[in-house]
């Protein structure tokens, strides 16, 4: 490949992997990691955490080409990539094939929280959703560093550094928009009204979240309230009154099926296809 034009290699003759920046096959992200097989509860737990990351990542990817500024486009894509990486490791930790889990399940089999799958709104909606999601996930994952499963603890130790960046990004935008113009403030208030009813879901513990390898989400509520309260305070926005009954894991909104139709389209039309 000539060093002058990175696109030259893409149009050159040849079918070798060199045409693609990162090759044509993606191997198991946990290949070679020594681990004991995951029991049913640990696998179910990793599936939940992996689905949260996978579906949230997809909604963030939908922002690519639609973000207000190039820098934010890059930021959102980076956050989506981090979450996709977390999803791959967590799905692999279930002991099942990550592609099967991502591309061959129907909406009713996904275990993500409802907040992750809701259709995207405006940029304020993204900021509010990401603030809620990353504050909650960071609080859970920082405690998961002490998980009794060493693989999950190792995944958490990496994810915690990434999620800290995600939360800071959302928090800074929340302050800027909330304490910004009349219009940006109105949009933040609307977004908080729309998304806050889904907050209660995040802290309703599923039975598998009581295992020794897991973090009971109810235990992170004080940290969540403290952080979101600080951010919204700086943004001169009131924390909404708690509203909405928590829905159990696996409750769907109707927004996931259309998302999966797009995410799984190629894999389902051409099973086993490679680039």
């Amino acid at each position, binding site marked *: 490949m000539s060093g002058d034009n990175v696109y030259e290699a893409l149009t050159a003759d040849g079918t070798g*992997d060199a045409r693609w*920046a*990162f*090759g044509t*096959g*993606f*191997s198991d*992200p*946990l*290949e*070679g*990691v020594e681990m004991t097989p995951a029991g049913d509860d640990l696998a179910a737990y990793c599936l939940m955490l992996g689905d949260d990351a996978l579906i949230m990542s997809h909604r963030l990817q939908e922002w690519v080409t639609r973000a207000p500024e190039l*820098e*934010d486009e*890059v*930021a959102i*894509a*980076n*956050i989506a*990539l*981090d*979450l*996709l*990486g*977390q999803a*791959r*490791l967590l799905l692999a930790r279930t002991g099942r094939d990550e592609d099967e889990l991502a591309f061959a399940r129907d909406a009713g089999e996904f275990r993500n929280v409802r907040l992750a799958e809701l259709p995207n709104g405006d940029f304020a909606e993204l900021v509010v959703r990401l603030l809620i999601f990353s504050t909650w996930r*960071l*609080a859970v994952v*920082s405690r998961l*560093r*002490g998980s009794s499963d*060493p*693989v999950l*603890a*190792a*995944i958490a*130790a*990496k*994810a*915690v*550094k*990434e*999620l*800290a*960046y995600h*939360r*800071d*990004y959302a*928090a*800074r935008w929340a*302050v800027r928009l909330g304490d910004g113009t009349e219009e940006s403030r109105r949009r933040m208030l609307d977004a908080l009204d729309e998304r806050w009813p889904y907050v209660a879901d995040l802290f309703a513990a599923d039975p598998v979240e009581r295992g020794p390898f897991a973090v009971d989400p109810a235990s992170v509520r004080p*940290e969540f309230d403290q*952080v979101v309260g*600080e*951010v919204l305070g*700086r943004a001169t926005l009131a924390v909404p009154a708690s509203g909405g009954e928590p829905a159990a894991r696996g409750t769907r909104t109707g927004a996931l099926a259309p998302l999966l139709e797009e995410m799984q389209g190629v894999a389902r039309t051409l099973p086993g296809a490679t680039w």
Partner: protein
Amino acid sequence: MVTALEIARTVTDPELPQLTLAELGVLREVAERDGRVTVWITPTYTGCPAMDTMRDDLVHRLEDAGYGEVDVRVTLAPAWSSDWITAEGRRKLADAGIAPPGRAPRRTSGPVPLTLGPTRTAACPLCGSADTEELSEFGATACRALRRCRSCREPFDHFKEH
């Protein structure tokens, strides 16, 4: 014969070809026994899409050097830190126009404090000025932030503390 470790230490990063995987702290261990080589690498970020390329590059380079069986394994613990980038690696980053990372925050337990304003600093790798500003915490790759020098006005990448 050149040892497997010496060969593995020459393999460069696909995104930052100026640096070797060893200088980045990604290459963790190389074991050689009866002509069989096992290499352990660790991802910088969990979503790093370059892991497969690193794996292939290590296998090809070692096979070219005559090693028949090469096994590249991933290790996740301890988590990679930008503190593992060697002094030589930092010099090469700066030569490539990328400001090397400062010391990474050390936190292994407890809540992560919220950061509502930019806290990192980095000297301009082009003119050396310390008067630089952050444009975005997220840059061209997961491991880089975008900054601008207020003295020479050039934008530059900053390898994030991680």
